[in-house]
């Protein structure tokens, strides 16, 4: 199980390889990409910034919670920081389990909780030249159900 912040580009193939496990019958991965629009505004690029010491701690807590809630074998979550261009990979989550149900559920839990709780901030650069820090993290239904 690992959570980390990376200032280097993420390599999904290499990350998935770290999860290799002969006991696993399922591997679910999630990739968060930089997209070209948000709430109707054309986006040119995104800047991510993290409070790394606390992000690592909160990320580790989320992994521990996921291990308690779901029947997991392995889990990895890596989040980029720095100035990212359209199409770049901002966050990668991978989970392995014996069966697909736990892998899907845990992957959803990890990305939802990471977005909602880990001290990472995102600044959007718009085509208009304006920039804005995005202040509205959202949780999926699954994470809400436990609260």
């Amino acid at each position, binding site marked *: 199980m690992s959570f980390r912040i990376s200032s280097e580009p993420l390599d999904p193939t290499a990350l998935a390889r770290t999860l290799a496990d002969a006991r696993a019958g399922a591997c679910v991965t999630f990739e968060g990409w930089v997209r070209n629009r948000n709430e109707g505004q054309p986006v040119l690029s995104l800047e991510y910034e993290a409070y790394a010491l*606390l992000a690592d701690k909160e990320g580790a807590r989320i992994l521990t919670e996921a291990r308690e809630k779901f029947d997991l074998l392995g889990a990895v979550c890596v989040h980029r920081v720095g100035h990212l261009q359209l199409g770049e990979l901002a966050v990668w989550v991978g989970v392995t389990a014996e069966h697909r149900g736990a892998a899907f559920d845990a992957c959803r839990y990890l990305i939802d909780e*990471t977005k909602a709780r*880990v001290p990472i901030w995102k600044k959007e650069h718009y085509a208009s030249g304006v920039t804005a820090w995005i*202040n509205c993290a959202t949780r999926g239904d699954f994470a809400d159900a436990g609260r």
Partner: protein
Amino acid sequence: MITLHIQYFAILREQRGLTQETLVTSAATPTALYEELRARHGFTLPADRVRAAVNDDFVPGTHSLRDGDRLVFIPPVAGG
């Protein structure tokens, strides 16, 4: 009066114009200090939308600050 080391991130870093500073204050809690700094530097976020961390752990806004603490104010997060 206590001495605190403050680190700023994201919107607060930009509005303060600094990544960190050391200051002497009579504020007893993160919320009290945030209100003081907000008035001084024009931070746009109200105190109830900002969390606090002391020595790299989340704390409530009512946490008692101690001399030498490292304090970070955490604007609403937006990973992913």
